[in-house]
């Protein structure tokens, strides 16, 4: 039953990806421009990083090439989160709620959380991953780091768990819009909070360090995965990441269910 339902949603998601591709390709120029903007964004980031590292050799224990890898992975992380869940989905949720645009879709035999957070993937995010991957490559080759293939699975587990946690945090914050009258800034607030993840975890001191591991576990989103990639891996990250991902995802689901009971639709 559960498995069947999951398969059905996967199939539908595949359909939705195809739809998104067709639509984004219809606006080819747009697609290209956005990609260009994305690339420029990474390039300016790179230049400012170079400038910072002219005078100092380390930031919170990270050297220039390590920072390149961190920023590269951070780009992959944020593009994925934004593309899959935010840009056309959670960002529009408050507006859709106030306008009652969810009515028809919420009557369908679908998981409603899936509907509001994944209905329209932003296809352009895929080429936007390329600059991130280039940065990672530059960091590795420039710094002369090796990559231990044994660490790939732990890396992937932590990184994907981090994505799930990030999505769940975004979902929980955005869900509040069911109760609030003017909630359009909520998704943006969530995004800003999540972008804290793109910094090295070691810049946070004392209670903040614990806070960003346990309460709002952004350490698992970019910082720990980057360290794992570079061989600086601590074993408990894997079970902790999995457990946190499960807890956060479940919490977001429960919270969304509660919110739906308070859904008022809109007068039309």
């Amino acid at each position, binding site marked *: 039953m559960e498995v069947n*339902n999951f398969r059905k949603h996967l199939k539908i998601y595949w359909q939705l990806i195809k*739809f998104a591709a*067709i*639509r984004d390709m219809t606006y080819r120029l747009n697609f290209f421009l956005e990609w260009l903007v994305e690339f420029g964004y990474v390039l300016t980031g790179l230049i400012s990083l170079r400038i910072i590292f002219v005078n100092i050799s380390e930031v919170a224990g990270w050297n220039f090439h390590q920072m390149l890898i961190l920023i590269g992975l951070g780009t992959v992380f944020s593009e994925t989160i934004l593309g899959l869940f935010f840009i056309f989905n959670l960002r529009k949720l408050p507006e859709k709620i106030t306008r*009652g645009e969810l009515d028809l879709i919420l*009557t369908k*035999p679908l998981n409603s959380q899936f509907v509001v957070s994944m209905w329209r993937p932003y296809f352009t995010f895929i080429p936007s991953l390329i600059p991130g991957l280039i940065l990672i490559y530059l960091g590795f080759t420039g710094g002369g780091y090796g990559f231990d293939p044994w660490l790939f699975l732990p890396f992937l587990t932590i990184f994907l768990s981090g994505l799930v946690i990030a999505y769940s945090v975004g979902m929980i914050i955005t869900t509040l819009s069911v109760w609030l009258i003017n909630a359009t800034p909520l998704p943006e607030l969530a995004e800003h909070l999540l972008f804290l993840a793109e910094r090295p975890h070691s810049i946070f001191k004392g209670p903040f360090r614990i806070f960003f591991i346990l309460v709002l576990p952004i350490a698992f989103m970019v910082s720990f995965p980057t360290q794992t990639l570079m061989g600086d891996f601590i074993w408990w990250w894997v079970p902790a990441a999995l457990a946190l991902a499960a807890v956060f995802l479940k919490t977001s689901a429960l919270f969304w269910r509660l919110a739906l009971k308070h*859904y008022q*639709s809109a007068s*039309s």
Partner: protein
Amino acid sequence: MSVIRVRNLKKYYRVYQKEPGLLGSMKSLLRRKYQPVKAVDNISFSIGRGELVGFIGPNGAGKTTTLKCLSGLLFPNEGTVEVLGFTPWDRKPEFQKQFSLVMGQKNQLWWDLPPIETFILNREIYEVPQKQYEQTLNELVKILEVEEVLKIQTRKLSLGQRMKCELIAALIHSPKVLFLDEPTIGLDVVMQKRVRDFIKLYNRRFKSAIILTSHNMDDVKELCQRVLIIDRGRLVFDGRLSEIISKYADHKIVSVVFSQEIDPKKLAKIGQVKSYHFPEATLSIKRETAPLAAAELLQHFPIADLTLEEEKIEDIIRELFTGKDYA
């Protein structure tokens, strides 16, 4: 056997009162004032298999809210609803697979894609077997005559073509229960008629229970044997359309043809003159005094012909609703 059973349903909205300006916004953040809007206030009814029921009432009376409760979109404040044996707001997929909600002002078709893509997606969502899907689609497409638009981007279709495709998208899983909220709104007269004919045909052909809301009396008159009238969230009438006359018609219509011109002022003493263009006139006269008035007319006026008729249903209902607009 009833397919839909509604008992003492109440749905109150909380509408927040926001004071103007920034200060008002901040104040309302701290202490929110809200007023309950009694959109649906204790209504009960049941609907049987294959019934096509008209749900009418002035703007803001609570029709859409009722349908949203029946679709499981809204949690009501009180009352019970059973649709096909399910409580709608439990949002069980087994329930959701068996009904459909169509709203005249809202669309589910993907704007940038041809309608056929939405149909295919709905096939997956409702898990309709391929063969059944093809059969249903072919039949609906033929009845609605939309073969040639299936592969054209939705954004390029006319409103009428789009509405027809909306109907197909809503019916591709052969729902046993159908809620139609103002399906003819915004359509031209010809298209209204075609949508109407389709609803009638669909109801006969598939025996699905249908609730139809409309402020277009032609829809209701042509399609529904039974109507529910809702006013300020309360059900004020539930019965056959023809019974409305005995319940609400307190006037009769007298039509006369005069053989000579008469003084309209004198005519006005008999009853309310609705129209007078020599040689014809119509008057609206209180039911009890209608025979008397007719006799008086025959006695004091040069009459060539006189008929006594019931008020038209749409006039009665229009009168019930005139001046009312709660939205």
